[in-house]
């Protein structure tokens, strides 16, 4: 199952866990002193010499852990690393269920729960119900719930199950998006709506599935709809009253994309006027995708936000000759004005639905002897990129799994070298393209531990056959133009969990999974990594070796994002939503028919047996030590 490819780097000193505990509120001092003692014992026993190769998130983007979980990515650097260490490699095998909660919705549960003070907040897939649970009372009873009642018709224009990737907390408010295109602010204490802004139009196929990010009093939200000919955008809404402060489109003239005098892309291919128009056939940019339904990171020192852009539409590349700017790329923007600073295109003239919206982890590291501010991106096209986040320069791009759709990245021009043998087009069937449209990795976010220097990547191992077909644009209906059928990748395991040594640019270890690993992951200062499988196993593995330490079978397949927090009793908890679905699990959550290889845009062909492995569900599981 697992191969040790590279020795794990030494762990850093034990200071982390102790510091986190020392900042704990004093009202739980009794339990706390006992805990400090226990943790102190463990940590001093386990501590090793500090590793010299410092690689860590910038402090401003990853402040000391307060034991809460206020945004899905944990912090602005998007590390999904917790400094809590009560649960560790030694005792994680004793984890047991603290409480469970049924969301009442049997669709794909991709959201990360949030924990703020004594409350936990979860947002369900459509109909996007928000629950607040009171963690200070036995069994964590419901404190309030809010039902936004989105339009049922929105379900028909959501490309890949009716998921929601979570809410965000800031200033006493919970912010979340609904499938039918609303961003809503709730009073975190009472659940009363404060504002509700309608920004997406389902009649042109627009939906919202992403988790918002709150930066400097602005709620950042992007749209979904790359399979419906929807023009992508990111909007900044005022956190106070919900009005739209700025909108940055993913295609079109420079002024719509918020490209101005400050825009300095690193590579020639991204320089020029109105490339968002001129790299398309006439008018095609208006229905060209470039949606932003994934993750945003923020660097407070540079005052930049970083976000990707989705695939160009339609999928059939013959229908849109040109580089199709600014799709399948990444923008750095001024956090206040949205003005673009730089852009880099992962997949110019994308051939295979390689959306560029995955998470970017902000790290400071030494690169070829020099300190660099980088961002690390495990990209859908199969490469793990390290970019200089001040300029957008690609420092390295290394395949982290099987890739044959391209032959690497030209570091001089920055350009992906497409493999002509795997070029799709109208009227021909191209076989065995790896990775698939769902990518070597899709939305499922990875986690980085500064203690190991490893990035923990949940991902897929799939290949596909593609055939371009003609397609008509009819607003509000799909605009894809591609028959796709997916198959398991080399080795037959359809998923993998890879620990990637960022400095060495190679894997430390790889765990094979039967189904795609469509869940997120979290890593802790206890050197434990948590993730879930589509069969429903919730697993804890060693952050250093990948050894399986503990697993628990939940009621349905897991595609959610695990989190860990310190409860009101001072103890560490781990939470995960179980409930299969998403694009990979649509065969179960949408009850699709496996006789059609192209069902769910071809994903069903690779998941024919999922219906025998799990059933739909929607349950929160929370674990703690006895």
């Amino acid at each position, binding site marked *: 199952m697992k191969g040790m490819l590279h020795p794990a780097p030494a762990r850093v000193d034990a200071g982390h866990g102790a510091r986190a505990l020392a900042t704990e509120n004093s009202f739980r001092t009794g339990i706390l002193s006992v805990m400090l003692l226990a943790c102190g014992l463990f940590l001093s026993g386990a501590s090793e010499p500090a590793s010299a190769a410092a690689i860590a998130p910038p402090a401003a983007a990853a402040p000391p852990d307060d034991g809460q979980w206020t945004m899905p990515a944990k912090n602005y650097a998007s590390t999904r690393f917790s400094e809590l260490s009560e649960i560790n490699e030694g005792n994680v095998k004793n984890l047991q269920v603290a409480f469970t909660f049924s969301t009442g919705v049997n669709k794909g549960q991709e959201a990360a729960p949030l924990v703020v003070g004594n409350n936990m907040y979860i947002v369900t897939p459509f109909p996007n119900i928000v629950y607040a649970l009171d963690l200070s009372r036995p069994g964590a009873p419901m404190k309030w719930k809010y039902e936004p009642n989105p339009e049922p018709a929105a379900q028909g224009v959501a490309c890949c199950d009716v998921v929601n990737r979570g809410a965000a907390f800031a200033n006493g408010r919970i912010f979340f998006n609904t499938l039918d295109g609303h961003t809503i602010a709730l009073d975190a204490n009472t659940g009363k709506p404060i504002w509700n802004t309608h920004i997406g139009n389902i009649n042109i196929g627009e939906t919202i599935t992403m988790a918002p990010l709150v930066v400097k009093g602005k709620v950042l939200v992007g749209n979904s709809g790359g399979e419906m000919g929807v023009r992508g955008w990111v909007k900044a809404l005022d956190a106070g009253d919900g009005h739209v402060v700025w909108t940055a489109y993913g295609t079109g003239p420079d002024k719509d994309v918020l490209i101005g005098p400050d825009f300095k892309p690193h590579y020639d291919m991204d320089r020029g006027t109105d490339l968002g128009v001129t790299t398309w056939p006439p008018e095609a940019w208006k229905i060209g995708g470039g949606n932003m339904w994934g993750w945003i990171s923020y660097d407070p020192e540079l005052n930049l936000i970083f976000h990707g852009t989705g695939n160009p539409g339609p999928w059939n590349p013959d229908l849109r000759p040109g580089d199709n700017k600014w799709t399948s790329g990444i923008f750095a923007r001024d956090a206040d004005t949205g003005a673009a600073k730089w852009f880099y295109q992962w997949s110019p003239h994308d051939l295979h639905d390689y959306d560029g919206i995955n998470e970017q982890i902000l790290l400071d590291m030494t690169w070829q002897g020099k300190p660099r501010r980088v961002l690390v991106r495990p990209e859908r096209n199969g490469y793990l990129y390290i970019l200089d986040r001040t300029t957008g320069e690609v420092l390295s791009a290394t395949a982290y799994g099987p890739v044959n759709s391209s032959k690497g990245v030209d570091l001089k021009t920055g350009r992906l070298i497409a493999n002509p043998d795997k070029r799709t087009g109208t009227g021909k069937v191209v076989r065995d393209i790896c990775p698939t449209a769902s990518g070597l990795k899709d939305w499922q976010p990875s986690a980085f531990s500064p203690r190991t220097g490893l990035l923990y990547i949940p991902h897929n191992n799939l290949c596909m056959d593609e055939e371009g077909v003609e397609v008509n644009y009819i607003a509000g209906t799909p605009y894809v133009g591609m*028959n796709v059928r997916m198959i398991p990748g080399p080795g037959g395991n359809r998923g993998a969990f890879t620990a990637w040594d960022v400095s060495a640019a190679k894997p430390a270890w790889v765990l094979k999974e039967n189904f795609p690993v469509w869940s997120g992951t979290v890593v802790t200062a206890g050197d434990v990594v948590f993730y879930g499988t589509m069969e429903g196993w919730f697993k804890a593995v060693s952050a250093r070796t990948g050894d399986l330490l503990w697993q628990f079978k939940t009621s349905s397949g897991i595609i959610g994002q695990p989190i860990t927090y310190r409860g009101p009793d001072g103890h560490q908890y781990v939470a995960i939503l179980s409930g299969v679905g998403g694009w990979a699990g649509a065969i179960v959550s949408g009850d699709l028919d496996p006789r*059609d290889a192209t069902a769910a845009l071809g994903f069903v062909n690779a998941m024919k047996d999922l219906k025998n492995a799990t059933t739909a569900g929607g349950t929160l599981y929370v674990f703690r030590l006895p």
Partner: protein
Amino acid sequence: MRRALAMLLPLTLALVACQREERDTRPQSALGSGEQPTPVTTLEPGGQRPSPTDNKAASFEANAFHMSEGKRLFGWFNCSGCHANGGGGMGPALMDEKWIYGSSMESIHATIRDGRPNGMPSFGQKIPDDQIWELAAFVRALGGNAPSSAAPQRNDDMMVHPSENRLPDAATLGKSP
């Protein structure tokens, strides 16, 4: 006052007399309107009555030409974008035995024409009525509900599933991909 009323009375009577029911005493059966409501349930208070049938349904159902036209339109109007080649995606599978709104020609026709609340668009303004009937005939073929002598045969394109005239039974599916 009374005089005025007395004069109004015959006038009203005359008007009422003008509002006679208009009806076509010899409807042409082959030109059904497709406009009659189609129930989405078989539960009917007071006992089940035969559901209304449209004469058009019979002339389109199980007709090889109409089904192959329906198959072409299924791609043309992006039905395939949401329902794939019958296995489903954004919309439900159409090739299985599970029907939310009924499997009759009339029900499927009504679904396509009027839409359905959970995301099925209404195509009544986009697709001429005859073509909606052709689509309905093809949707029935997708579900294996058309005679194999008439259902569409092999695709020229990627083999997405066995052709409609020889679809395997859902129960005999292989377990692994």
